Structures are given as C-alpha cells and as structure tokens.
C-alpha cells in the first residue's frame, strides 16, 4: 500500500486513541512520552494512555503510513538519543483534518438540535 492510494475518508471514523495521537503530532514531531503528555493535557487528563496503548497505536499508524519515524532531533544536545520521534505524513495530515471536519459536522448537528450551547457560526467554521 502506498500513500497515494489511501483515501482519507475510508479510514474514518478513527478511534479516540488514534485521533488524539494524530492531533498531538499535528503540532509537530514528538517522541512517545511527549505524545502521551500532549494527549493528557489536551483532554484535561480525561485520556491517559499507557505505554501499551500508545505504542500499539503508533505501530498501526506506522503500518498504514499515517505517521513516520523521524531521524532528526529538535535539539540533539538536550535530548536522549534513544528516543524515537514521530511525525505526520501527508496522508496522516489529510486523515486528521478529515476526522476533525467530521467531528465539526457532528458538533454542528448537535448545536442545530440545541444539544450544545454556543453559536452555530462557531461550529460551521470547522477545523
């Protein structure tokens, strides 16, 4: 399977773990523990991934080439050489955007049915 053959829409919906890992990597390349911390912070500690779930998810994302391992280090002098960094591929970026749009659509729908507060316009802007 090559990256060009993947249709992002076909991979949706993503599991929460996959979506949050991709969201964390949308902010730039990160190593495993940094991804874990980013997920915990962005979800206000509602999602705390363990090492098993994290690397299981990373393994599957590498297999479908939504992410790739990076050889570069942000600051080699300050970082542990054994750490493995990951970043989004082009397809990964498309997939996370598509999933974010899907969520935005759901939020818009929920607001339309007055299940959520806030303005409709805010929801329609999407990600």
């Amino acid at each position: 399977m090559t990256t060009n053959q993947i249709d992002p829409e076909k991979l949706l919906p993503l599991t929460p773990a996959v979506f949050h890992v991709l969201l964390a990597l949308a902010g730039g390349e990160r190593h495993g523990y940094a991804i874990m911390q980013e997920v915990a912070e962005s979800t206000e500690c509602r999602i705390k991934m363990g090492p098993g779930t994290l690397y299981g998810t990373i393994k599957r994302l590498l297999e479908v080439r939504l992410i790739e391992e990076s050889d570069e280090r942000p600051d080699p002098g300050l970082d542990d050489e054994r750490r493995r960094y990951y970043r989004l591929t082009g397809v990964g970026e498309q997939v996370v955007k598509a999933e974010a749009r899907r969520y935005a659509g759901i939020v818009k729908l929920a607001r339309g049915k007055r299940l959520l507060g806030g303005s409709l316009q805010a929801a329609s802007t999407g990600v």
Partner: protein
Amino acid sequence: MSLPIDNKTLLRSQKTYKWLLVAYPKSHREEYGPAMSQVFRDQCRDAWREARHWGLIRLWLRVLPDLIQSSIVERFSALNERKSMFDKMAALFRPRLAPLFTFLAVFVTVLVLVLTASVVITFLLPESYASTARLKVEPEQENLFGGASPSETAPTYDPYFIQTTFEIIQDPIVLSKVINQLNLNGDWGKRYNGGVPLDTATTMKMLKQRLSLDTIRNTRLIEITVYSEDKNEAAQIANAIVQSYRDYRVQVHNEATARGIQMLQNQYQQDETSIRQAQADLESLRQQFKIGSGMTDPQSPQAQPYWDKKRELEQRLEFHKLLATKIEAEKIDVQIPTLGPVEVVRLAQPGNWPVRPNKPLNITLGAIVGIFLASVAGAISALIAFLVGERNRNTTAATGR
C-alpha cells in the same frame, strides 16, 4: 530524605515493567519494548515527583490494565499474521477440548495478572516500622485533701478510665508538646510537603494516624505504638508521648494537691480566728466568775459555763495542731519526687524489621483472590467456548457442511 530508597523503588518498578513486557509478542517486544520501557521510566519519575509511593501505586493501577488489554490485542494481531498455522492447531483441539483449553488459558492469565499486581503493589507500598512503649496507669484518687497518692486510699472502679486515658493521650494537650519537642512540623514538612513546614493541625492529624493505643486485658497496662518509615523516629515519638502524658498526669496530680493544701490553710486560718475569739470569751468568763489562774476544778456550780467553754477550747486547739501538722506533711510530700499515677513499664525501642506492609499476607491474599477470580473467569470463558462450539456444530449439521 532517603534517596537510596527512592532509587531502589523506582528501579524495582522499572525492572518489573520490563519483565512484564513478555506478555507482548516477541516481534512487538523487540521493536517497541525499549521505547515502552523508556516511557514507563518517564512516567515513574513524574509519578514519584508528584506523590512518591502513592503516585507509583496509582501509575501501576493505570498501567496494568493497559498492559493486559494491549498485550491481548497484540497477541491476537500476531496470531492473525500466523493464521494458517493457528487454524491447523485449532482444528486439532476443536470442538471437544476447546472449553478446557479456554479455561486453562484464562485461568493462568488472570491468576498471573492478579498475583503480579498484588506483588507489585506490596513491594511498592512504603515500609513502616512500629515501636511500642508500655505504661501502667492509675486513676487519680480524690479525697478530702484533693490528691493524695493512690496508695493512701482504696482504688475505685471507673469503667471509662482506660477510654478516658486514650482520649487524653490523643489530645493536643499531650501531642502538641511531642510535636514541638521533636520538631515534627519541620521534619515532616521536609519529607512530605516539599520542604515547607506543616502546620500543627496537619501534623497532629498525621501523628494520630500513626498512633495506635491498646490495653492489656484485665490490667491497668496500656501500650502506645507509633508507626513510621524511620525506625528511630517511631521509638522517639512513642517515648515522647509517654513523657508528655506522664508530665500531664503529674501536673494534674500536683495541682490537685496544691488545691487541697490551700483548702486546709484556709480552714486553719478560719479556725485560728474563731479560737482567738473563744479565748477572749473564756477570759471574760474567768473574770466574771473570779476564777484564779491556778484553779483546775469548778469551785461553784455557777462557774460551770466557764469550764465547759474551756474544755471546748482545748479540743479545738488539739484539732488546730493536727491541721497544722497535716499541712506541713502535705507540703513535704509534694516536694518529694514520686512516680505519680503513671509508671513506665517499658520504653519504646527501634524495631528491627518493618511491620507494614505484611508481604506474606498480602501475597497470600493476592493468590487466594487470584485463584477465585481466575476460576470464575475461566469457567465463564469455558462455558462461552462450549456454547459457541455447540452452535457451530449445529450449524454445520444443519447446512450439511
């Protein structure tokens, strides 16, 4: 601060996690095992910084279910990759032996996981030592003189005496002296509050949690036991509580005695005033009846009131002298050092071995609970496997395939 213990605990956690990675398929372990270990090490470091031992226990309670779940997922994933081989093996066992193998697999897995969890948690719990001091306590005997030594009066039975003693020992009147004397606010602040001294109320609460009071049945002996991670500190605190309680009881005893002496002195002064008045009255009677100073017997019946008054005065003077003697005796008693109503039978010594956690008990309980849960989970799984097998057989029979 005990840095070597910190390092030992963290290393033990990391080694255990590395060992538990055998739950994953070999290929997954080889590819991601070092990275997973490194992430766990980072988590351990943060959890320790956050709440020391309890932080690590909370981390393990999150990581173990994650490990179980993700290792099962990876195992299934690896099995799918070797599906053809698995199918051949499964065909050998199906359908009759499938429930048995399912039971064994689930039983062993659940038992190992529960046992591992109990071992990990037991070894992560902070160790604590106990030191016990033994006291003989006597109730304060109230009498006319307000606090004579217990041996002077018959003991009275007070069903609430031991309970009252326990409450006094746990009262700020005793414990605050211990906290100040051992500087527990500062020491425990360094150990548990990031170097910031604790307030006395918090320290008192923590001290009460580490304090255990017990009585020896049918005696007036009580035991004061203190638990601490530091064996010397446990003994110091127990002995300081003993000293503080004894000081309190001696103070109460002395105050009661002083009140008694004051009462006697007041009585003495009142008597002295009335005796002077009686002496003056007697003198006026003597002059009235013209009685000479050398006369000892009544000379005429008219002088009888004088002699009656004189006898009464002599009796009062006798009692007055006795009162003065008693006051002097009490004053001397107060100044003689005595054991008082509390006797230290045995001072606390530092313990040789930690008493908490009780490792053999915890692991045995873990094994018992593990066997129970493993049996239930295994039986349910075997039943499901049996029912699925039956359904498949019926389907095969119905379709003729």
